[in-house]
């Protein structure tokens, strides 16, 4: 079998198999360890004689470290060493880099960039010494660029130009021309970045909190100048990543260098503030959106021009237009993405890069178009579902947008919405409803996994794939149990160790369908072996509860067909289908808000999401992914915003007290509908990804509900009370 996935696997094998565990809402197998506090995260491995390292950040915005006054801190109790080696990172690696990111840690490019590591016997000693460390700089902060400037932006990628946008807008019956802005966002995973490095001769073991182990091995090896086969990374439990742990970061290389020098294990855990200041941000965006529609509401013109920022020479640019490219029609279009260079921490992947911010802006603009047309917003979207990707002619694979819109509207009670704003008041609260579509590109990534059917009938799955809360432990076991006809209790899954075959890694919503397909193919190879034992074609093989048979014959124990363990490695790579067919996941959000007529405070009262992402591999963990995405959407709509000081460029809200992620009280009753779907073009599992879909447009539904409640159309996320206050209607006037 070719590794690359070039033609759809229409057998739908997982619908023919008999075990009945695929898709079931099973508990996470590692859940018992997590709720008991027994799942070890990176910093929690007990290594004898482990020293503690604390990073030191630059106090200038731009320049170079001239001197570090080591002697003063080396005399402090317990202090072992101060490192500021050239190999140490000044920037974290982007996802999938596979090579060292920017090193030369003494070159300062943004405020509080790590420049040194202080190592001591204890965390308290290292922290004290790190604060006491005196550093001299060649300060070039006056040359730093502190505020992103669209005027100085350069094209980030080739623009899309189809037809005549300006001409079509001139001829359109209805036009919307609006500019939306979104601020920077932080991943803010609950577990701060952490690493324990330990050398054995010239071999390195790193316990890290990382999302994509195979790339991280190469990044770390390249950073410290050793071959990749000398590096082992263990990342079995990851306390959230959301993009911030895709590539290696400051702590991993610093711990590695310190450990090599000191000849003992070294643990480095970044402080919460350092994670905010130094690792990765989502770029702020400015998005001009122009929509032109005929009198029936069909788009004829679509302009989406976006501005983002990043450090000089970073290749990543927040792909704001990713879903605009394929979601709706509008043959005359211009889509441009421009980037300006700025002295802020690296901009990179934060959950659902692109659609997380592009979709809310597009969906808010669509809401404005619906208002202009006096057309129901759901109906407007349904009228603009294109037959093929505009300007490309590419066909779509399975697409459940319309089904999600209808199912979501029905479940939510959208028919009770009043089309005009300021129609419903409860006490001092304006009540309104809003909706938005969800869309996210789907990606199949290269992956390998080993499956072993042991002589006793138990099943073992091994891959360096990580589980960052996404459910990899659960779904990979379910795929193997289903394919090999064994009870789930007899299946175990070992992840996050670079000694195992290389999975896809956790990112871009591709882990489940990619590494899952590798598990599927490994199981197919094992099934072929079992079929030989039964003298039947592999697809005629029936397996359940450890028994094997072909239709019409007596079941036999699988173990009777085996001569010891059967271990196979399954592989998959993206193939022609990724190019020939437009693959994406779709959905719809519906939301009810209350806006305080006096204070402008917005409370989300309930939210419904309906999502189609191919076969559901575990209905419980998939639902949780969707819920989590919607929580992010509420945060993005109402509270989340990185704020930078325009005088020196430092991040002012660098922790969880000041950067406001949603808390329990911010999250209302939520409903998730999983739309039945099979997408054979996406993977042999007929599954797509779901890790990010729940955020892609969610904030737009909140914004549109705010407009429906109180008639204020904000175009600047997050929609905080101060922005709403000025335009709120007379609170004493009541509903119009």
């Amino acid at each position, binding site marked *: 079998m070719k590794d690359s996935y070039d033609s759809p696997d229409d057998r739908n094998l997982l619908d023919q198999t008999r075990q009945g565990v695929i898709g079931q809402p099973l*508990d996470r197998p590692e859940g018992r360890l997590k709720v*008991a506090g*027994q799942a070890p995260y990176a910093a929690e491995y007990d290594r004898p004689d482990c020293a503690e390292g604390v990073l030191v950040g630059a106090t200038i915005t731009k320049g170079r470290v001239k001197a570090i006054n080591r002697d003063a801190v080396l005399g402090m109790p317990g202090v072992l060493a101060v490192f500021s080696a050239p190999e140490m990172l000044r920037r974290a690696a982007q996802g999938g880099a596979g090579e060292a990111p920017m090193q030369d840690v003494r070159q300062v490019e943004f405020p509080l960039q790590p420049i040194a590591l202080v190592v001591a016997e204890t965390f308290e000693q290292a922290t004290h010494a790190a604060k006491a460390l005196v550093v001299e700089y060649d300060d070039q902060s006056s040359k730093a660029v502190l505020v992103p400037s669209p005027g100085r932006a350069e094209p980030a990628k080739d623009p899309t130009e189809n037809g005549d946008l300006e001409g079509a807008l001139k001829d359109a019956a209805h036009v919307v021309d609006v500019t939306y802005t979104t601020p920077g966002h932080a*991943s803010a995973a609950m577990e701060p970045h952490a690493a324990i490095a330990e050398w054995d001769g010239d071999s390195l073991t790193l316990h890290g909190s990382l999302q994509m182990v195979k790339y991280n091995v190469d990044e770390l090896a390249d950073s410290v100048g050793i071959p990749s086969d000398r590096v082992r990374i263990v990342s079995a439990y990851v306390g959230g990543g959301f993009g911030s742990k895709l590539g290696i970061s400051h702590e991993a290389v610093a711990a590695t260098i310190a450990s090599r020098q000191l000849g003992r294990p070294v643990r480095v855990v970044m402080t919460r503030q350092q994670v905010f200041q130094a690792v990765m941000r989502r770029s702020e965006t400015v998005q001009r959106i122009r929509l032109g529609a005929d009198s029936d509401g069909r788009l004829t013109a679509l302009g989406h021009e976006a501005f983002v920022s990043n450090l000089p020479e970073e290749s990543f640019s927040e792909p704001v237009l990713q879903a605009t490219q394929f979601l709706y029609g509008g043959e005359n279009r211009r889509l441009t993405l421009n980037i300006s260079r700025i002295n802020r921490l690296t901009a990179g992947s934060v959950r659902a890069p692109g659609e997380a911010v592009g979709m809310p802006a597009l969906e808010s603009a669509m809401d404005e178009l619906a208002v202009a047309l006096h057309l129901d917003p759901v109906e407007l979207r349904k009228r603009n579902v294109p037959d093929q990707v505009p300007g490309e002619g590419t066909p779509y694979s399975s697409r459940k947008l319309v089904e999600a819109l209808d199912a979501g509207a029905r479940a939510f009670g959208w028919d009770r919405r009043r089309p005009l704003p300021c129609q419903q008041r409860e006490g001092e609260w304006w009540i309104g409803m809003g909706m938005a579509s969800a869309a996210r590109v789907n990606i199949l990534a290269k992956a390998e996994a080993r499956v072993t059917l042991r002589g006793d009938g138990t099943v073992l799955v091994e891959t360096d794939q990580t589980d960052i*809360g996404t459910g990899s432990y659960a779904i990979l076991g379910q795929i193997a149990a289903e394919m090999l006809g064994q009870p789930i209790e007899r299946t175990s899954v070992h992840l996050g160790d670079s000694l195992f075959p290389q999975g896809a890694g956790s990112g871009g919503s591709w882990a489940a369908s990619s590494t899952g397909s590798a598990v599927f193919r490994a199981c197919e190879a094992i099934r072929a072996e079992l079929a030989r034992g039964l003298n039947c074609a592999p697809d005629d093989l029936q397996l359940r509860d450890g028994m094997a048979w072909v239709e019409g014959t007596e079941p036999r124990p699988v173990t009777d067909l085996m001569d010891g363990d059967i271990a196979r490695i399954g592989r998959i790579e993206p193939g022609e289908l990724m190019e020939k067919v437009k693959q994406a996941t779709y959905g719809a959000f519906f939301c009810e808000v209350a806006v305080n007529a006096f204070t402008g405070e917005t409370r989300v009262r309930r939210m419904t999401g309906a999502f189609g992402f191919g076969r559901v591999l575990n209905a419980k963990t998939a639902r*949780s992914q969707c819920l989590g995405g919607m929580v992010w959407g509420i945060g993005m709509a109402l509270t989340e915003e990185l704020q930078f000081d325009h005088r020196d460029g430092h991040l002012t809200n660098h922790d969880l007290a000041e950067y406001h992620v949603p808390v329990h009280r911010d999250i209302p009753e939520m409903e998730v509908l999983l739309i039945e779907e099979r997408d054979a073009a996406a993977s042999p599992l007929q599954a797509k990804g779901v890790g990010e879909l729940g955020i892609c447009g969610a904030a737009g539904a909140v914004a549109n509900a705010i407009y429906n409640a109180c008639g204020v159309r904000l175009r600047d996320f997050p929609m905080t009370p101060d922005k709403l206050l000025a335009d709120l209607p007379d609170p004493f006037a009541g509903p119009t």
Partner: protein
Amino acid sequence: MAQSPAARIAVNGVTYEFDGDVRRSLLDFLRRDLGLTGTKKGCDHGQCGACTVMVNGRRINSCLSLAVMHDGDEVTTIEGLGAADNLSALQKAFVSHDGFQCGYCTPGQICSAAAMMEEIREGWPSFASEDVAGRVHLDDEEIRERMSGNLCRCGAYANILTAIKEVMESGAKP
């Protein structure tokens, strides 16, 4: 340096001597000195609740408290509530309702919920209570309000609420 003060701290029923650095937080004492890493460090500033433990039955952020302050105290951590092969009712409910994803905030959520249930039983009011002097009317908003010191970035809040309610309504020991 002054003589190190000592504290005797009972953790999950076992008494330990603390004679270390006065700067050591209760959190780092648990994680580093005792190897009880179920209590998590998410921010070290009392902002996220991942380090929540119970001291003499009351929930606190263990990162905001120094070990040396706890002479004579009884500390209960997640390990004291139940082990993977012997889960408590709350721990079981978190698993069955998927009240977590990455699992890092989870021990703090569970310890916090266990202590919260006792606070409600004793009639403590919250910001969400209609009548701070009267009986607490237990509804979803009360639980959400009282659990808002425990952040979950994966966004498992709706499932956490379901898990806590199930245990509260069953009357089981958390």
